[in-house]
């Protein structure tokens, strides 16, 4: 057991993936000597050499497009996109090529590519450095999309993503990079919690029933847990589910919870319209229609471009906004 930040846990996970499979490559802007702007690849070039961990030219389409070619050649490239707002130049390669080549080939070609994207706000950054573009990728068949929310998951999920024979978009909540947790790195991947599965991260204590289900992923998991703690202090129990996998969605635990609580609230930083919350609300309504005591509510970023950093606390889902939604749900 060691105490690791999420950034370091990702770093350790990448290190282990490089050790386990000589075909794993790490490529991106500044991932070499600098170790990436968030230091997630710190020390990896020094230990694994410039052939396996290398800086690329500054062009995101080039990063992803050449990763496709490397994958065709039998490599397992792990691409780093420096910030969420800079993934768009690679969007064509991701959507039209990465997502579709296996299908286009009738199953003959596999593209085991991982595209890591630090995402989300709350770090006081300038424009284009705080976005949550996950829905664009979730909407694209052929891609798998996951997001870690804590160091333990980060350590295992990045390794599992690299082992996956499908392309994986791996979202890292940058506001959580520096949060620490005890991580047991001695286990094996086979024993790790499945990558494409959600997890109940807070249940009502035995003998008490929860009054609402909070559904979160990435940066908002901690917000939801915090809200649940405050609610518990006030005598109300909330269940919290960390989705972890955004495509495919694993909603069975959500349905199970909502059938008991009758209330569901989805929490994400991304803008509301057409976001994950809409999909989850739709599916929960289909599956839990007779159990619902209120419509599924969403606590999200608003439908505006990401605001200047001095306003981001008003934009992002906060503890109070989550609790407000719980109140609204209960009073429905």
């Amino acid at each position: 057991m060691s105490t690791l930040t999420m950034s370091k846990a990702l770093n350790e996970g990448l290190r282990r993936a490089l050790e386990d499979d000589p075909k794993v490559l790490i490529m991106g802007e500044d991932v070499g000597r600098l170790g990436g702007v968030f230091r997630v690849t710190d020390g990896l070039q020094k230990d694994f050499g410039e052939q396996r961990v290398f800086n690329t030219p500054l062009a995101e389409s080039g990063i992803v497009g050449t990763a496709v070619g490397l994958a065709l050649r039998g490599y397992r490239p792990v691409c780093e996109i420096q910030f969420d707002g800079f993934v768009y130049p690679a969007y064509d390669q991701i959507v039209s090529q990465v997502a579709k080549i296996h299908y286009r080939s009738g199953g003959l070609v596999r593209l085991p590519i991982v595209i890591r994207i630090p995402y989300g706000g709350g770090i006081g950054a300038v424009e284009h450095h705080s976005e949550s573009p996950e829905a664009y990728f979730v909407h694209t068949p052929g891609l798998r999309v996951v997001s870690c929310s804590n160091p333990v998951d980060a350590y295992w999920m990045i390794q599992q993503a690299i082992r996956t024979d499908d392309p994986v978009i791996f979202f890292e909540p940058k506001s959580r990079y520096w949060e620490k947790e005890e991580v047991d790195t001695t286990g094996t991947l086979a024993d790790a919690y499945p990558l494409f599965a959600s997890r109940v991260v807070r249940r009502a204590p035995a003998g008490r029933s929860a009054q609402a289900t909070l559904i979160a992923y990435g940066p908002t998991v901690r917000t939801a847990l915090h809200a649940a703690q405050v609610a518990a202090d006030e005598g109300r129990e909330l269940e919290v589910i960390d989705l972890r996998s955004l495509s495919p969605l694993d909603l069975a635990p959500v349905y199970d919870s909502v059938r008991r609580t009758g209330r569901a609230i989805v929490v994400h930083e991304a803008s509301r319209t057409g976001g994950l919350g809409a999909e989850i609300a739709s599916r929960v309504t289909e599956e839990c229609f007779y159990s619902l005591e209120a419509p599924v509510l969403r606590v999200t970023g608003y439908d505006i471009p990401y605001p200047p950093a001095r306003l981001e606390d008003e934009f992002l889902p906060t503890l109070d906004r989550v609790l407000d939604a719980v109140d609204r749900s209960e009073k429905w």
Partner: protein
Amino acid sequence: MLDGQAALGGALDPPTAPASAGHETGEPEFVQLLTPDGKRLTHPEYDVEFTDDELRDLYRDMVVVRRLDAEGTALQRQGELALWASLSGQEAAQVGSGRALRPQDMVFPTYREHGVLYCRGIDPIKPFVLFRGVAHGGIDPNEHKFNMYTIVVGAQTLHATGYAMGVALDGKVGGDDGEAVLAYFGDGASSQGDVNESFVWASVFQAPIVFFCQNNQYAISTPVERQTRRALVHRASGFGFPGVRVDGNDVLACYAVTRRALDEARHGQGPYLIEACTYRMGPHTTSDDPTRYRTASEVETWQGRDPILRLRRHLESRGLADDAFFDEVAADAARQAVELRERVLAMPDPQPMDMFNHVYVEGSPDLEAQREEFARYLAAFASEGPAMAAEQTGGGRHR
């Protein structure tokens, strides 16, 4: 023999306006080994000795790929293909470069390289699968050393570059058995960011790749002047690697420059750009109408530079082939075309449930649920009687 280092417009007739970019510094020289009237030239840097058999084989290849291509156009006109992208006019560029490949080399085509595909020994029905709408064109790239067609213009050049980087990582450069990658693109694609990024990547990683630009003068209707002020071959020097302009209607020159560029790449000399000046004799695809944007006289000018005719003239002038040979080649091509046509017409439609296959290697419960939903929907028709059920699986539903 004459000196083949001619300027475009020297050994050839002067091209009409849209056929040559308005270059500030004049036309760059281009490599030509066979003039339109069939004269064999030599070149100090790019030349290859061809045996008589090789010359006859190149002729046969070009005739066959033109004939198979014509079948594609005909099948589309008869409603048997949704679309066809004709290679007509570009036979020399494709056969010359395609035959210059060594077995270990890898090809990344656009959607028009039916001639290269043929030279690779791949069943020529593959593009017809794509254009008939039966499948997206599944070719195993590693079996054939030929990637699937890429329809997004220019995207494949990055895949080719990454693949070439992988070749280098594998240590497969540096000797005669080294591997090289041949990436095709067109004059329109030269404006795409992906193509320019692939030049950057290939250059700084010293990747074993040859970029083969078939400058067929038009991106659908847009002439090459709207893509570039200077000849495309000049792009190479800015990115830091050699470039050569070649008469794209001269199969010998295309072969020679491609062989040389691939050999340099496989020996670790890094990337190479080839600009093959050619002309798309037909429409962009069967959906296009080139009479709206180019003149009959321009087309006629390029007919005078026909790639097949010039090799025929050369073979005839040297007594390397007689009428019996030419007749036999034409019959061979016709036979292959008939066979291809029959196979295209016999191609079964995919089954409705097939559309859910191969989205993911490792499957998806979400998608599985949708597959089951669709299966239940189909089954509902089956319960209404066999006639309806047959319609459901036979593609006879209303659309």
